């Protein structure tokens, strides 16, 4: 998979490495900006209030 991407990037090894770095940073940005904020409320790690159970919407 990553080998395939590497072979299909243009340029020499340095250019490929640079493009790879940009791609990695772009993926991390999308994860931090959109994916994680979306996923976090669905995961049971950060509820801090007491409530009446599933019926009560916080």
């Amino acid at each position, binding site marked *: *998979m990553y080998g395939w991407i590497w*072979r299909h990037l243009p340029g020499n090894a340095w250019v490929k490495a640079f493009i790879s770095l940009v791609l990695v940073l772009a993926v991390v940005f999308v994860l931090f900006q959109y994916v*994680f904020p979306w996923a*976090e409320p669905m995961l049971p*790690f950060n*509820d*801090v*209030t*007491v409530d009446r159970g599933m019926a009560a919407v*916080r």
Partner: protein
Amino acid sequence: MTATGYDEDTDRSPSPAPRRARGIIASVVSVIGELLITAGVILALFVAYSLWWTNVLADREANKQGDQVRKHWATSGPKGPGALDTKDGIGFLHVPAMSGGEMLVKKGTDSEILNEGVAGYYTEPVKSGLPQDKKGNFTLAAHRDGHGAKFHNIDKLKDGDPIVFESKDTWYIYKVYATLEETSKYNVDVLDAVPKESGKRQAGRYITLTTCTPVYTSNYRYIVWGELERTEKVDADRTRPKELR
């Protein structure tokens, strides 16, 4: 993993059919392996996001809003409108034992509010009292980890430690008198105006801090109760009460 790797390998195979089958299996296995590694990296990034990046964002947001509240206090007159402005935040909580500096207190405990790195006072399931009320329980929630982690050190609070709430014109000095180190997340009785589980039977001016426990999870809730000891008028220099000096 590279194509040349198994090309050389399969050249020694006797016939083309098994060679192709082995090539397909090898690429399938290598793709699965890469996906697993990717999943691991994403989970590690998620941990970094939850425990570090959300703190950065929340602290930035809370500082901005806190500055706004202070500016608002400074510009509006001593008894003018805005003595209690619930939109921007009603004041600041200072807990020396938690050593996290001041935290802004806002109305509501929805995650959108708490994620701004503030402490929120309950509006439901049990409506919180406010510090200036004659009787009542001022009930607050904040994050233990991530999003500012304002109540991270709640376990450092011991009986007798001060919890100070700063409003525009008054310092409210509470003293911790009871803690509940682990309770069900459905235990809403801890928020009652007279929190019986803390041992109190009579109406008074109480404060209740709630957050999740153990750290990094939210299986249970950690509760700290305090009772108002005294109030002090805020002077022109906003001199801090002796508990905060």
